């Protein structure tokens, strides 16, 4: 599988182009539903995915969210990250900058193979969501013993 790394980060546009290509190649399309303010962002949250042994790992930056604000579900080879980030308290205050998105988001990634939904583990710490996705038994390589006669 082609590897894609960000070391020596290319421009954002280049990255997006590469990402589109990558998504087209490996992830079979990404469906996003971003009502409200997150709609201005192309796909939220941004996700990194890598593989180690018989497990896939996904990571996303979700600053300002608590565990109860995030909902993760896995069906076959689809991973969905859903959540809601509270609006900044507006009260009578005047905003000088408003760059942080708020509201609801949902993003579905198609993974390169089926994962074992029963054993998916996720942690959210200091705004970093880490998900461990073990390969489904059906997706694991099988060692076939050749019996010598």
């Amino acid at each position, binding site marked *: *599988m082609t*590897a*894609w*790394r*960000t*070391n020596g*980060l290319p421009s954002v546009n280049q*990255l997006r182009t590469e*990402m589109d290509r*990558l*998504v087209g190649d*490996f*992830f079979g399309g990404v469906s996003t539903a971003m009502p409200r303010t997150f709609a201005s962002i192309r*796909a939220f949250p*941004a*996700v*990194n*995915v*890598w*593989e180690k042994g018989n497990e*896939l790992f996904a*990571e996303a*930056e*979700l*600053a*300002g*969210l*608590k565990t109860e604000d995030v909902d993760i579900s896995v069906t076959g080879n689809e991973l969905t990250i859903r959540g809601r980030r509270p609006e*900044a308290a*507006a*009260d*009578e*205050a*005047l*905003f*000088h*900058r*408003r*760059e*942080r*998105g708020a509201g609801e988001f949902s993003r579905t*990634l198609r993974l*390169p193979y089926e994962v074992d939904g029963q054993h998916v583990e996720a942690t959210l710490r*200091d*705004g*970093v969501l880490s998900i461990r996705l073990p390969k489904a038994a059906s997706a694991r390589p099988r060692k076939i013993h050749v019996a010598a006669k």
Partner: protein
Amino acid sequence: MTEATLQKEAHGDVETTRTGQVYRPNVDILERPDELLLAADMPGTRGEAIDIHFEDGELTIRGPVAARQPADTNYLLSEYGVGDFYRTFRVSEQIDASRIAAEYADGVLTLHLPKVEAAKPRKITVHSK
């Protein structure tokens, strides 16, 4: 109330002593009668490691972020980079630097920049004769 109290960040490249990519955190800045409140998305750093510097009206925020994966990780999908957060602002409002307070929770840095007394809005009562 002054408009654009916090103007554009200092231009130019950021020079770092460490190698590696530096990222600009997204911020919300809002003005309250007695303070400026800044919230910055800085996931993956540590509260005690965040460096906040205010001098001559220039506010600098730096949050070191250690690599979470080995440098040779082969990403199947890589949409963001991981590295230190850094951003600097010019603050034209008069700030009482001695009372700047900060907290870090869930990857968000919240910074309270209290205005000095003179900069607070004052209600002037007009007496009629």
